[in-house]
C-alpha cells in the first residue's frame, strides 16, 4: 500500500469502490460525446445515482445533509472517484459552488429550498458571472438589477455560461448600485431559468462541441427574497465562490485527466519502437513528477478545506499546478506519442490538446492566478 489509511476508512473506500465499479458505465466518454444530448442525460442521471447510492454530499457537513467524512475519507473518496473515471454530474455547479454559497451566506429558507434538491439531483444550476466586457476583470460587470417593489428587474448579458439550457436556476452576479465603487455595488441573485425575458444562445467551442452559452436578460423579474446575503455585498461572496471553483474537486478532476492521458501514453510507448520510448522517457518522468507534486498539493488543499470554510492561499498555487500540468501534459503527450496521436478517431490526444486550452482560462486565467499569488501570497504590490 502506498499510503497509510485507517482500516475503517479503507472499509469505507472498499464500499465506495464497489459501488463505482457497479455504477460507472465503461467507455461512457466515447459513447456520449461532450455536449451531446445523451451526454447531458448521462450527467443528470449520474447525480441521481449518486444520491440513490447514498454518496451525495460527500464533501458537505452533516448539518446540511452531507456525509460528514473524515479528512482521510475525503481523500479516499476523491481519489477513488477520479480513478474510476466517474462522470462529474450535471449538478456539479450546484454542489461545488451554490451549496457553499448558500451554506455560508444564504437564508434558512434558501438553504431548505435548494440544498436537498441539489443533493438529490433534482435541481441543476448554471453560473452567471462573466460578461462580454467583464472576463478577467469580473468586477466591471454591467448586468443591472433594479429594485421595483417586491422584485429586482434584471437587464444585461452573461457569457461562457455552461449548462444554461439544462439548468433550472442561475446564481447571477448583478450590479445593484451603479454609483458605488465597482467592487462595492455588486449583489448575487438566485434566478429561475424559466423566468420570462431570459434568452439562451449556445456557443460552439474550439473542440467543435461544447457546453457554453450566452444568456440575455431582458426585464427579468426576480423576487427580492432571492437575494443572497446583503445587498451590494456580492463581491466578497463571489471571490469566495471563485476560490471554491478552483478548489480540490477541480484539482482532483484535472489530475484524473492527467493520469488517464499519461497512462494512455505509457501504453502506447510500450508498443512503440524502442528509440521513441527512450526519447520520451525523460519528459514522461518530468510530467509524472509534476503530477505527483500537484497531487500532494491537492491533498493539502482538501485537508485545509476540511478545517476551514474558506479556501486559502494554497488554492491558487494548486490551481496553477494542475491547470498548467494538464495543458502541458496534453501537448507533450501528443508530440511524444508520435504518429499514433494523429490517427486516433476518438478525439484522444488531439482532442484533449485543444480541450485542455480551456483549463488555463476558465474560472480565472493562469495570469489572474499569478496576480493572486504575487499580490496575496508574496505581498508583491
Amino acid at each position, binding site marked *: *500500500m502506498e499510503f497509510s489509511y485507517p482500516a475503517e476508512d479503507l472499509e469505507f473506500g472498499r464500499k465506495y469502490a464497489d459501488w463505482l465499479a457497479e455504477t460507472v458505465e465503461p467507455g461512457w466518454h466515447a459513447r456520449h460525446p461532450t455536449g451531446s444530448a445523451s451526454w447531458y442525460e448521462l450527467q443528470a442521471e449520474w447525480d441521481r445515482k449518486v444520491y440513490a447510492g447514498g454518496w451525495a454530499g460527500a464533501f458537505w457537513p452533516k448539518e446540511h445533509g452531507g456525509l460528514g467524512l473524515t479528512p482521510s475519507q475525503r481523500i479516499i473518496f476523491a481519489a*477513488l472517484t477520479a480513478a474510476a473515471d466517474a462522470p462529474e454530474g450535471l449538478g456539479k455547479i450546484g454542489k461545488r459552488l451554490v451549496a457553499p454559497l448558500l451554506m455560508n451566506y444564504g437564508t434558512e429558507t434558501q438553504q431548505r429550498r435548494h440544498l436537498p434538491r441539489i443533493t438529490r439531483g433534482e435541481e441543476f444550476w448554471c453560473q452567471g458571472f462573466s460578461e462580454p466586457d467583464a472576463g478577467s476583470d469580473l468586477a466591471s460587470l454591467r448586468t443591472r438589477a433594479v429594485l421595483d417593489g417586491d422584485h429586482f428587474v434584471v437587464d444585461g448579458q452573461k457569457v461562457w455560461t455552461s449548462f444554461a439550457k439544462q439548468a433550472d436556476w442561475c446564481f447571477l452576479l448583478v450590479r445593484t448600485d451603479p454609483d458605488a465603487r465597482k467592487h462595492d455595488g455588486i449583489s448575487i441573485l438566485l434566478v429561475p431559468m424559466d423566468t420570462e425575458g431570459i434568452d439562451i444562445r449556445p456557443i460552439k467551442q474550439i473542440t467543435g462541441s461544447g457546453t457554453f452559452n450566452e444568456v440575455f436578460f431582458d426585464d427579468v423579474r426576480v423576487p427580492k427574497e432571492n437575494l443572497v446575503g446583503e445587498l451590494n455585498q456580492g463581491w466578497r461572496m463571489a471571490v469566495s465562490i471563485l476560490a471554491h471553483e478552483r478548489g480540490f474537486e477541480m484539482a482532483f478532476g484535472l489530475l484524473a485527466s492527467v493520469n488517464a492521458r499519461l*497512462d494512455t501514453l505509457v501504453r502506447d510507448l510500450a508498443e512503440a519502437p524502442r528509440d521513441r520510448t527512450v526519447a*520520451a*522517457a525523460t519528459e514522461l518522468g518530468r510530467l*509524472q513528477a509534476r503530477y505527483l507534486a500537484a497531487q*500532494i498539493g491537492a*491533498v493539502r488543499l482538501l485537508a485545509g478545506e476540511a478545517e476551514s470554510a474558506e479556501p486559502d492561499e494554497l488554492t491558487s498555487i494548486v490551481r496553477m499546478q494542475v491547470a498548467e500540468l494538464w495543458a502541458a501534459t496534453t501537448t507533450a503527450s501528443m508530440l511524444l506519442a508520435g504518429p499514433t496521436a494523429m490517427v486516433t478517431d476518438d478525439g484522444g490526444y488531439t482532442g484533449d490538446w485543444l480541450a485542455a486550452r480551456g483549463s488555463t482560462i476558465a474560472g480565472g486565467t493562469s495570469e489572474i492566478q499569478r496576480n493572486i*499569488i504575487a499580490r496575496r501570497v508574496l505581498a508583491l504590490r
Partner: protein
Amino acid sequence: MRINPDSEETAATTAFGDLVASLGTTDPDHLDAARLRTVSAALARDGWLEVATDGTFTLLCALAERAGAGGRPFAHPLLEGWLARRILAALPDPPAVAAGEVLTVAVDLLCGNDTGASAGAVPFGGIADTVLVPVVLQDGSARVHHAAPGALPLAAGLAVDRTVPTRHLERSAVDAPVAGVLPAAEVRRLAAEYLCLQACEIAGIVRVLLDSTVAHLRSRRQFGSLLASFQALQHRAADLLVDVESVRSLASHAGWAVEVGAPSGADYALTAKGFAGERGIEIANGAIQLHGGIGFTWEAGLHWGANRIAYRAVTGRHASDALHEAGLRAVARGGLLPGISPVVAVGTS
C-alpha cells in the same frame, strides 16, 4: 502521508538551524580537515550526527531541508555523514566510529550514477577522516570498503561548488579494508535515502532563493516604483513559488514513502531528486534574473545556493537521468505511480 510536521519535528529543526547558524559560514579557501573536525564536534555534542540512526528518516529529511535553508549552504558532509552512519548501521559487524568522526561516502557508486570512466564523486573526499566506498556487485549487493582518503585512488573532482571540495574515485576496484556487505535491498534503500536527502536540501535552498528574490522586489525601485509593482516580475515570482512548493512537496513526500517502505519508495526518490535538481536550477536562474545586475554580483551571494543545487543535481544520480529512469519504469509498469490512491480490492466489501 503527512500533511504538516509535528511540533517535535519543528522544535528539532529549529534547534538544528540555530546551531548551524551559530557555526558561521566557511570560507572555501579555509575549508580543511581541521574545520570539518571542529564543526563535526559541535554537531556531535548536540546529537546531530547520531540522529542519523537515532531519529526517523523523515526527521533527517526535515533537517536536510533546514540545512539548505540556512542562507549560505552548509559546508560540511552532513548528508554524507548521515548516510555513512546508516550504511554502517546496516552492516552485521561494522567498524567502530568515533563520536565526531568526519565520514563521507562514494555516493555516485552507491546510487548508480553514470560518470563515465571514473567511479564517481566523493564529496569532501580529500579532507574527511574516513571514506566509505560501496562497490555494488552484480547481484545488487554492495561490498563496503572503508579507508582514510590517502589510502584510496582519489583524483581532483567536481569544482562547481567550492563549499563541497570533491574528489573523484578513479576506479571502483579499491584495495582497502572491507567493513561488510550490504544486501541488495539495503543498497536500494540507502541509495533512495540519499536522493531524498539531496532533494530536501535543494528544497531548502530554493526557498532561500525565493525569499531573497521577493525581498529584493519589495525594496528596489525603478521607473519611480517598487519592482514588486511590475506585473511581468510578479508573474515570474509567482511561477517561482509554484515551483518551490512543488519541489518541497515531492521531496518531503518521497522521504516519507522511503521511510515507511512503500513499494514505490525508490521511484519517488528518483522522481523527487530529478525534479528538485532540474527545477532547482531553473529556480536559481529565475532568482538571479529577478535580482537584475545585483544578482550577477558575488556580493549578492546567489551563486552559493545556485552552485549547491547544480552540485546536487549531477551527483548521487544525475537529475535528468533520474527522471529518465522514472519514465522508463512507468512504461515498464504500464502506468504512473499510484500516488495517493488507496489500494482497495473491488468486490471485497
